[in-house]
C-alpha cells in the first residue's frame, strides 16, 4: 500500500487513474444507497426533463436515468474486475508454466496464444454472446478466455530472462523449491508489468461490456451504461430535441471516464518497467 502511494506521488497520471477508479468503485458498492430509485422500475412519466426528483430525467419507459447510471457503475466494475481476475489467473499460470517448463508445453502454450491473439476478439464475443443469450457470466468468461495471451506472453518472456539471473540460480543452489522461487523472486519482479497489463485489460473490458450492451447483448436483468446508449439512440426524438444532453451524454461520458481511468493507471505504471518511457512520455 505504501509502495502504491510512492508511485502515485511520482506520476500524476497514475494518481488521476487511481482516483477515478476509486470513485467508480465507491459508487458501485454504494449503489443502493446513492440511487434514489430502482433502475428498472417505472417511477415517473415517460421522458420527463431533469428535475429535483429525477436528476437526469426519465427514459421512454419512465425509469429514472440517474439511478440507471449509478447501477451501471456496478455492472461495469463487476465485469471489468471478474474478467481481469480471470485473465490474470490464466495468463500468469500459463506464462509461468511455459517459461519454467519449456519444451513441448511451452510450444503448445505459445502457439495457442498466437492463435487466440490472431482471432478478432470482439466479433467472436458478439458471436458467442448472441448464441448463448445475453448474460454477464458469458461475457466475463469469454473475455477471460480471449484475453490471457498478452499476459502469458509477458510473463513467459520475463520468466525466461529472470530464470538465468544470479539470484535465481543462487536460490536454486540453496535448494529452494520452484514455488518459493516463483513467489520470492519471479512474481515481485513481474508485478508492475502485470499490473499495467491488467489495467489496460480492465479498460478494454469496460469498453466491451458497454459495447455488447450497445448492440443489445447486455444482461437484461441489470442496468448498464451501454444499454442506456442503445435505448436512447433507438428513440427517434433524441435526434431532434435536447434530450440527448441528459439521456445520452452522461452514460457516454461515464464509459469514457471509466476507460480513461484504467488506461491512466496502465500508462502511469509503464515507466516502472520500461525506462524508455520516462524520457519521452
Amino acid at each position, binding site marked *: 500500500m505504501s509502495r502504491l502511494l510512492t508511485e502515485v506521488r511520482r506520476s500524476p497520471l497514475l494518481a488521476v487513474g487511481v482516483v477515478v477508479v476509486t470513485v467508480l468503485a465507491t459508487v458501485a458498492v454504494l449503489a443502493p444507497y446513492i440511487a434514489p430509485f430502482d433502475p428498472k422500475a417505472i417511477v415517473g412519466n415517460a421522458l420527463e426533463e431533469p428535475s429535483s426528483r429525477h436528476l437526469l430525467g426519465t427514459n421512454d419507459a419512465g425509469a429514472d436515468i440517474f439511478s440507471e447510471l449509478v447501477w451501471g457503475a456496478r455492472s461495469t466494475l463487476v465485469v471489468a474486475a471478474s474478467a481481469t481476475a480471470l485473465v490474470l489467473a490464466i495468463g500468469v499460470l500459463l506464462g509461468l508454466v511455459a517459461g519454467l517448463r*519449456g519444451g513441448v508445453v511451452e510450444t503448445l502454450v505459445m*502457439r495457442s496464444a*498466437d*492463435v487466440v*491473439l*490472431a*482471432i*478478432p*476478439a*470482439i*466479433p*467472436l464475443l*458478439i*458471436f*458467442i454472446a*448472441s*448464441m*448463448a*443469450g445475453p448474460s454477464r457470466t458469458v461475457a466475463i468468461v469469454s473475455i477471460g478466455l480471449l484475453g490471457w495471451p498478452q499476459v502469458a*506472453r509477458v510473463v513467459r*518472456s*520475463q520468466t*525466461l*530472462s529472470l*530464470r*538465468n539471473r544470479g539470484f535465481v540460480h543462487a536460490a536454486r543452489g540453496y535448494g529452494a523449491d520452484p514455488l518459493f522461487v516463483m513467489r520470492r523472486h519471479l512474481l515481485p519482479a513481474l508485478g508492475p508489468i502485470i499490473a499495467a497489463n491488467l489495467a489496460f485489460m480492465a*479498460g478494454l473490458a469496460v*469498453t466491451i461490456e*458497454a*459495447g455488447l450492451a*450497445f*448492440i*443489445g*447483448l447486455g444482461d437484461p436483468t441489470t442496468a448498464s451504461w*451501454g444499454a442506456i*446508449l442503445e435505448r436512447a*439512440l433507438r428513440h427517434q426524438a*433524441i*435526434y*431532434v430535441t435536447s434530450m*440527448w444532453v441528459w439521456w*445520452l*451524454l452522461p452514460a*457516454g461520458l461515464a*464509459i*469514457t471516464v471509466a*476507460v*480513461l481511468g484504467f*488506461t491512466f493507471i496502465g*500508462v502511469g505504471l509503464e515507466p516502472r518497467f520500461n525506462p*524508455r518511457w520516462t524520457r*519521452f*512520455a
Partner: protein
Amino acid sequence: MSRTAHRTTGPLPDASEEEAGQTEVVQEAFEGRRTRWAPILSYALTVLVLVTLNFAVPRLMPGDPIDALLAQGSPNYVADDAVREELARYYNLDAPLPRQYLSYLANLATGDLGHSIHFNRPVSHDLRERLPWTLLLITLAMILSIAIGLPAGIHSAWKRGRRVDRGLLGFFLSVQNLPIYFVGAMVLLVFAARLRLFPLGGASTPFADYGPLATVLDVGHHLALPVLLMALQFAAFQYLVMRSAMVSELGADYLLGGRAKGLRKRRLQYAYAGRNALLPVITVIGMQFSLAVTSAIFIEQIFAYPGLGLYMFNAVFVRDYPAMQGAFLVLTVMVVTANLVVDLLYRRLDPRTAA
C-alpha cells in the same frame, strides 16, 4: 535486439520478447527452414480454428438450434415447412457429430453458408452484396489513418517535449481510448442531425438517379463521417508507435551527418529517420485490421451503412443463426487474411527477416 524471425503472428514491437534461453543456437538451425512456411501454417491453423468455432458454438448452446429458432412465440417463428427443411438440411443435426462437421466443411467448400431465416435468402448471396461496402469503408479509413497518423507521429517526435508534441500526444491518447460507439453517436447527432452537414445514414441517396461523378460524390458524402471516425481511431495507435520509434531514431549519427551535409529537414524526417522507424508501425497496421472490423460493426450500425457489420448486427437482433455465422466467418477470415498479407510484407521489408 534479436528480431524475432520465428514469431508467427506478427512480430510485436516488443524488445523484451526474445531474451530467451541458451538453446538459441540449436533453435536457429531449425528456424531457418521453418520460418518461410511459419506464417502460412499459422494462418491455416487460425482459419481452421475459426471455421471450427463457427461450427461448434451454435451446437454447444443448450437445446437444438432449429427448435430454439423456430419455436412458436420466438420472433422468427416460421410456419413454412420449406424453410424448416432447408435448415434441417443445412445443420444436418440428426447425423453424428463428425459427420455433421464433414458435411459442414463440404458445404463451406462449395460456398454454401446456409439459408437466412429472417431474410429468406442464401446467406452467401447477402454477404457478397455487402462485402464490397465494408471493404470500401475499411480501405478508405486505413489509407486516411496512415496519412494522418504517420506524419503526425514524425512531426511530434521531431518536436518532442514542445507544445505541439504534448497537444498531439494528448489528443491521440484520448482518441485511442474513446469508445467509438459513443463518439460515433455524438458525431451523428451533431453533424448530421443538428447541423445537417451530412446525411443521417446509408451509403447513397435512395432512388437518386445520378451520373457517374455525382454518384461518387454522393457516396463520398455518406462515407465522410464514418471514414473519418474510423481513421482517427486507427491513426491514434499508429501515431503513438511512429512517434516512439521515431524518437529512438533521432539520436542516430546518420541524422547528424545528414544535417551537417545541409539536407533539408523534410528529407531527414521522412526519407531518413521516418523510413527507419517504419517497421514497428507496419506491424501495428497489420494488427489493426481486427480493430477495423470491430469498429465497422459499431459504425455501420450507427450510420445505417449497408455493410457486413450492419448485416451481423441485424442478424443478431433477430437471432438469425445462419446469417450470424456467415457474417462472423467472413469478417474474421478477412482479418486473419489481412494479417497474413502484412506479415509477409513485413518479412520482405525487414532485411533481417527477408529471405
